[in-house]
């Protein structure tokens, strides 16, 4: 039983870590502290909406040079882990 719990916990932790490592990639352009000085903030948004947006960039339904390239390099599992991670990050401080 404890092993099972451990495995479940471990898998959730691994998913979170996967999301965090993928979010690190986003942080090259998007501030993850909720601020937005020209590139939209992506933290604290609805998880389902984030997945839909990334899928739209991946299929080309939404057009953006950078986001099309990034989204097409991610798997469905990557997008799910990333969205779950970003959705629970704080929206951050008020705009200065």
């Amino acid at each position, binding site marked *: 039983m404890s092993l099972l719990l451990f495995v479940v916990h*471990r898998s959730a932790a691994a998913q979170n870590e996967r999301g965090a*490592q*993928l979010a690190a990639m986003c942080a090259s*352009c998007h501030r993850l502290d909720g601020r937005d000085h*020209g590139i939209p903030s992506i933290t604290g948004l609805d998880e389902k909406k984030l997945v839909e947006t990334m899928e739209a960039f991946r299929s080309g339904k939404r057009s953006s*040079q950078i986001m*099309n390239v990034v989204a097409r*390099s991610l798997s469905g599992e990557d997008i799910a882990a990333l969205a779950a991670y970003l959705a629970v990050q704080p929206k951050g401080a008020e705009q200065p």
Partner: protein
Amino acid sequence: MNSWTRRQFGSLAGAACLAAVAPRVARGQAKARVVIVGGGIGGATVAKYLAMSAGTIEVTLVEPKPRYTTCFFSNLYLAGIRSLESLTHGYETLTQRYGIDVVHDSAAAIDPVAKTVALKSGATLPYDRLVLAPGIAFKFGAIEGYDEAATGIMPHAWIAGPQTELLRRQLEGMEDGGVFLIVAPPNPFRCPPGPYERASMVAYYFKQFKPRAKILILDAKDSFFEQDLFQDAWDRLYPGMIEWLPGQFTGAIKSVDVKGLSVKTEGDTFTGAVVNFIPPQAAGELAQQAGLADQSGWCPVEPTTFESKLQPGIHVVGDAALTDEMPKSAFVANSQAKVCAFAIAAALTGSDRFGPHLFNTCFTFLAADDAVSDAIAFEPTEGTIKISEILISQVGEDAEIRRRVVQQANGWYDAFMHDVFG
């Protein structure tokens, strides 16, 4: 009890747990130590992401300069659009928020057997893993007459700071009608669009203040990155001002006469009122000394960890790394640094790592309200790194699209600096 005896006597469940989480550095031992030499984009990013992702690793960043001025966007300073101060960043947050030990000193020597870095001050830093992010060195002596002393008269301005200020002063002091000569280096070099963005940004300045001035680019190459975008912009925005001479036209750049401000090629000698000589480049000196560079002058690395192919336990990120189709850009250095940090954390603490996800985006200015960009994804393939997808701005785009790229570029700079130093 160490992990070996625990494994011997532990239950099946216990053994399974250990297999999954056992850190390479057992509990009770000192923290694993990672030393990073070079506080540019690659080095600072590795330091921050290691400190964030693994609290059990002691992170030391060695960098002689108290503050870092970004080479990217420094052409905007030459154009008079941005101050150099706005491109300069300190290390305080890395220390205060992430607990990184920032040592303002230079690395003098590396001992890969004893696993130590000797500092100029005389101190010695032991490490479990070492990361070198030494950036570029100039191949002084590759072109006759261009040595370190020559940079005081013909600045390269390819490492931002005093060199960039010197070039700006020279441009300000230049008479209207003078010729600004740019010597562009052979591949590979830091920032592929850089020399041509520089021509565009100086033309932007000349157009306002010295409209009769000319810009002549003497190139070692026969083509360059985003050439169609630049040539379109030069015709559109600065007609008759910028001339580009490819390597096949000039022969090769043979020598410089520093006092005469002239550059001799196979066929001709060209003289400028201001000469910006961007020399051929190689990996930073420390990488050469430590035996990390191959015959190319750059450091071959494993594409999923950025561990040196020549010296195990030492990683190289950023411009110094030999990574095939990845350009030498700040974005690439940052992207490599994260992959490297997660790989080191996995090796030292047993944490998971995913990916690698490697990207590049460059924003390139053609005028204050006209910029272009590229987006590239990379894939590690057969020991090297190849482009898997690339999208680039197009000739003939609407002015509104280009203005939006300018806004994106400024937003990106803010977020990127926050990612590296914030």
